[in-house]
C-alpha cells in the first residue's frame, strides 16, 4: 500500500509539518487539565485555516479532530476530495466519543429519561466522527468505524489493504481518533498511575505510567497504481508470543506507558537495530501508535532519524540519541498489548 498522504492533529499542532517540527524540537511538558491532571491536548487555535472548523461548529471535538486529520491527508497528497476516485474510509478508535457519551448521560441525570439531548445522543454514536469526515469531504465510498483496545489501527490498515487489493476503492483513508476527558484521566491514573514528571518513557519497559493524550492521524493509502509516494506499507503482522527480532533499519516502539508490564518489548528492542519511540510527544492513547507510525513515514520521506524525545534508557538499548540524516530503507513499528500479542507495521521507502 502506498502512503499518498499524511494528516494529523495532536498536542504538537496540526499537520505533518507540525509533527515534524515537534520531532525535531524534542520533548515538551504536557499541559495541566481543568481537573489538575497532565495530558497532551489538542488546541484548535493552532489550526491556521479555520474554514473546516467553521463548517464543523456543531460537531464534537473527536469529529473535528478526525475531519482535520483526514483533510490534511488529502491535502498532503495534493488531492482535492473529488479527485481521489473511489475513497473508502476506516476510522479506528478505542474509546470513541466517550466524552460526548458522558455529556448525554449528564442530560439523562439532570433532566430525566424523556428529556435528554438529541444532539448529544447523535454525536455519541461511535461512527459520528467518520460520518463527519465523509460528509465534510464528500466521500461516498464504504465508511467504517472499528474498535478494539489494542491494534485497532493496525487491523484497520489490514482491512484497507484488502479493499485496495480487491478493487473496492482507489484510495482508502485510514485513521485513528481519540479524545481526552476527565473520566478517562481518572481511570488511567487509578489503573496505571501516571508519570509524575509528565515524561512517558518508552524504553523503561515498565513504569512510570502514561500521560494521556488526544488527537487524530490519517493516512491516504493507494494501491500499486496510485503512483510514487515516497513511502509504503509493506505488511502489517499481528501475532502472539515473543515478537520477531527487528530486521529493519530502524525499529520504533509504540510503548506509551499504558501497559502495566512492558517488559515484553525488551528482547525485540535489544537486537542491535537502532530504536526510537515518540509517544512522549503526543501522549498515551490506545490507538496512539499511529503517531509513531507517522514519525516513521516522515523519517523515510526525509531520510533522517529523529532523536527519541525522552531517551531515558535503563536497559542500554540502542536508542537514537540525536536527530541526523540517515539512509533508511525500512522502518518497523512495534506494539504489544497486555494479552501477549504483538503487532508490527512494516514501512518501506519508495
Amino acid at each position, binding site marked *: 500500500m502506498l502512503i499518498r498522504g499524511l494528516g494529523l492533529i495532536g498536542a504538537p499542532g496540526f499537520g505533518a509539518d507540525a509533527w515534524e517540527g515537534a520531532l525535531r524540537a524534542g520533548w515538551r511538558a504536557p499541559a495541566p487539565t481543568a481537573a489538575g491532571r497532565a495530558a497532551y491536548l489538542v488546541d484548535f487555535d493552532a489550526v491556521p485555516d479555520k474554514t473546516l472548523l467553521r463548517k464543523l461548529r456543531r460537531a464534537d471535538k473527536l469529529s473535528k479532530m478526525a475531519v482535520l486529520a483526514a483533510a490534511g491527508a488529502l491535502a498532503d497528497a495534493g488531492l482535492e476530495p473529488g479527485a481521489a476516485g473511489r475513497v473508502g*474510509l476506516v476510522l479506528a478508535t478505542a474509546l470513541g466519543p466517550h466524552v460526548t457519551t458522558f455529556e448525554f448521560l449528564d442530560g439523562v441525570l439532570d433532566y430525566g429519561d424523556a428529556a435528554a439531548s438529541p444532539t448529544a445522543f447523535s454525536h455519541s454514536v461511535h461512527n459520528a466522527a467518520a*460520518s463527519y469526515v465523509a460528509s465534510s469531504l464528500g466521500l461516498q465510498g464504504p465508511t467504517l468505524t472499528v474498535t478494539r483496545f489494542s491494534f485497532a489501527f493496525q487491523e484497520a490498515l489490514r482491512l484497507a489493504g484488502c479493499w485496495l487489493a480487491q478493487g473496492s476503492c482507489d484510495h482508502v483513508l485510514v485513521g485513528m481518533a481519540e479524545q481526552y476527558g476527565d*473520566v478517562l484521566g481518572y481511570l488511567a491514573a487509578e489503573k496505571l498511575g501516571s508519570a509524575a514528571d509528565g515524561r512517558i518513557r518508552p524504553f523503561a519497559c515498565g513504569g512510570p505510567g502514561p500521560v494521556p493524550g488526544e488527537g487524530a492521524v490519517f493516512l491516504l493509502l493507494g494501491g500499486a497504481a496510485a503512483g510514487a509516494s515516497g513511502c509504503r506499507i509493506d505488511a502489517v503482522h499481528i501475532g502472539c508470543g515473543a515478537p520477531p527480532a527487528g530486521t529493519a533499519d530502524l525499529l520504533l516502539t509504540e510503548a506509551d506507558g499504558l501497559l502495566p508490564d512492558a517488559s515484553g518489548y525488551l528482547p525485540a528492542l535489544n537486537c542491535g537495530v537502532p530504536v526510537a519511540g515518540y509517544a512522549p510527544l503526543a501522549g498515551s492513547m490506545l490507538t496512539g501508535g499511529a503517531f509513531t507510525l507517522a514519525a516513521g513515514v516522515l523519517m523515510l520521506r526525509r531520510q533522517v532519524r529523529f532523536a527519541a524525545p525522552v531517551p531515558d534508557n535503563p536497559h542500554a538499548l540502542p536508542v537514537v540519541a540525536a536527530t541526523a540524516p540517515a539512509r533508511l530503507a525500512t522502518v518497523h513499528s512495534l506494539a504489544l498489548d497486555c494479552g501477549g500479542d504483538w503487532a508490527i507495521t512494516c514501512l518501506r521507502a519508495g
Partner: protein
Amino acid sequence: MGGAAALITGLGLISAAGGSLPATLASLERGERRAGPVTLFPTTLAVPVFEVPALPGADALPGQRTLALTLAALAEALAEARLGEAGSLRVGVCIGTTVASQLNDLQFYKRYRETGTAPLAAAERFLKGNLAQCVARRIGARGPALTVVNACSSGTDAVGVALAWLKGGLCDLVIAGGADELSHIPLCGFHSLGIVNPGLCAPFDRERKGLNLGEGAGLLVIETPESARRRGVAAELSVAGFGAQGDAYHLTAPSPDGVGLRAALRTALAEAAITPAEVAFVNAHGTGTHDNDLVEGTVLAELFGPAVKVLSTKGYTGHTLGAAGGIEAVLTAAALRAGWIPASAGFACRDEAIPLAPVTARTPVSGRYAVSTSLAFGGNNAALVIGREVAPC
C-alpha cells in the same frame, strides 16, 4: 457452491423472537410479536421493547449482557458449523455492536460526577468486553479480529469485512455478525430523537410512528470453500456479495434520494454477478420510521420492481441496532434455505408514497439469492447478497 468465495456453514440467533434459530423461525411462522414493557432497567419511558426473556449465561456475566447474547448465538453457530476450538485454522472474528463499545454505565458516571471517584468495576468490564476480542479469546482464534461500530449497519458491515478478509487471504474462516443488548442510554437517545413508537412498530405502513428497540445477536460462520472442504463440512448457503456506500449527507437522516443505498445494492449485486431479477426476496432494514422506510422502499422498488417480495423482521425482533444486520443476515439465509418468508409484522395500510408493499402473510419463495439491507446513522448503507446452492438434477 462452485464460484462462491465465502460459504456459510453455521448460523446462530437469539432475540426476543426466540432463543435459537429454529425457535425463532417457528415463532415468526406463527406471527408472534413478543414485545412488552422495559424490565431490564428502571425508566420512566413507557414504550414497548423486545427483550430476550431467558438469556443463558447472563448471570455469569454481570454487566456484560451483550457478550452473553453473543455467546448464546456463537454456541449455536459453532455447533452447526461443527467447529469447537479454532485449532490450526486461521479464524477471524468480526462483530458489530453499538452498546458494547461504550462506557455508558449510568451509575458509574453518576458516582464519578458526584464525588470525583467511582469504583472501577464498570470500567474494568468495559475494557475487557470488546466483543471481537472476547470471542477470539474464547475460541482461540488467531486471525484478524475487529469490532465494527457503524451504528445500525454494524452487523451487515461486519459480514462485509469478513468477506474482504476471506477474499484477501487473511484467514480461512470468520465468525461474523452483530450483537447488542437493550440499554437505557440508547432508549433515552432514540426517544429524544422522537422516533420511538409508543405502540408496536409498523414498517412500511402508512401510519408508521417509529421504531421499537430490541436486543439480540445473530452470527454466521463463514469460510472459504477450501476450509469447508478440508473440514468435511457441507454448505448450502454463501455470502455471494456485499456492498457499502456512504450518503455523505447527514448525521442521522438518510439521503432523500437514496444515493448510498442504491450504490450499495448495485455493488453487492455486481459482486454476486447477478441481476435484480434473480433476487427471490429482500429482507429490508425497515425500521418503521418515516424517513427510513420511505427512502428504502423507493430504492428497492426502483431497483427490484414494485412486485418484489419484501419484508422487515423488526416487527418480531425490534430494532436491535448493532445486532440488526447480523440477525437479519441469519434470518435471510435461513428463509432462503427454508423456502418461505414470514409476514412483515405490523404492516396493514399501504403508503402511497412508497412504491411497494411488504408481504402480509407467510409467503413461499424460490430462487438462489436474497438480499438483506441496512441503513445507519452517519449515512452508512450496506447490502448483502446471500446465495443458496441448487441441488443437482
